[in-house]
């Protein structure tokens, strides 16, 4: 099977997954990646969201908890951390659970990583509250 045959589905599945994580996310992310290269979205999003995240052995809610933990511990991707905290809340993780995850990272990655995680969670929760007040995006 050639890459040309699988490409459209792989990208389409990835974009559907992104919109499950946050309504309207696929449009924002593809606009960013398409500005760089035609193949970028398919390669990057296809790998992350179709090849890995869509695998059935772990449910999406648990995967988002793991992603928040990993990004908090790494501390190198604040934008992605904020997005995945919102995505976690959108896939059934409670705010209380997000706070527990960030707290646990103080043990394994240090207090500064935890404090940056708290700041990211604060921004993510505020964005979720703002969206809730405005209504879902795309409904005008």
């Amino acid at each position, binding site marked *: 099977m050639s890459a040309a045959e699988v490409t459209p589905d792989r990208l389409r599945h990835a974009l559907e997954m992104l919109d499950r994580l946050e309504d309207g996310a696929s449009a924002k992310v593809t606009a960013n990646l398409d500005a760089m290269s035609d193949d970028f979205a398919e390669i990057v999003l296809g790998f992350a969201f179709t090849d890995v995240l869509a695998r059935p052995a772990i449910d999406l809610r648990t995967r988002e908890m793991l992603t928040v933990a990993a990004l908090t*511990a790494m501390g190198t991707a604040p934008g992605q951390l904020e997005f995945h905290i919102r995505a976690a809340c959108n896939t059934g993780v409670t705010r209380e659970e997000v706070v527990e995850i960030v707290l646990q990272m103080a*043990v*394994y*990655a*240090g*207090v*500064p*990583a935890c404090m940056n995680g708290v700041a990211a969670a604060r921004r993510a929760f505020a964005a979720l509250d703002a969206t809730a007040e405005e209504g879902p995006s795309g409904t005008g």
Partner: protein
Amino acid sequence: MTDRHARGQEVRRQVLGDAHVDRADAARTPLDAPFQDLIAEAAWGTVWASDGISRRERSMLTLALLAACGNFDEIPMHIRATRQTGATPQDVAEAFQHVAIYAGVPRANRALALAKRTYAEMEAEDDG
């Protein structure tokens, strides 16, 4: 050889000990010679040579940074260097407490295990 290089070699011997430096110099090849000169001038001739803070404090900072960045390979060498710098096992333990808080418990745990093993080796060598 620059003054800074010569001063660096002197400080390096004072901190790491003659035996270590003799071994390291014997292992020097054309491949790592420029790197060794860079380290001699920058790390030993500039940073460790400064008298702005004590050698004991430099030992503690260095061990904490090595552990926090996960550069565990050099921890045994710097534990051995505490004999020359005057940092006590208690100083080292306090430095690793900071690592646990700021860089995570697993890194402090690993650094402590390496320190413990190195202290044991040093004691065994003294007895032998």
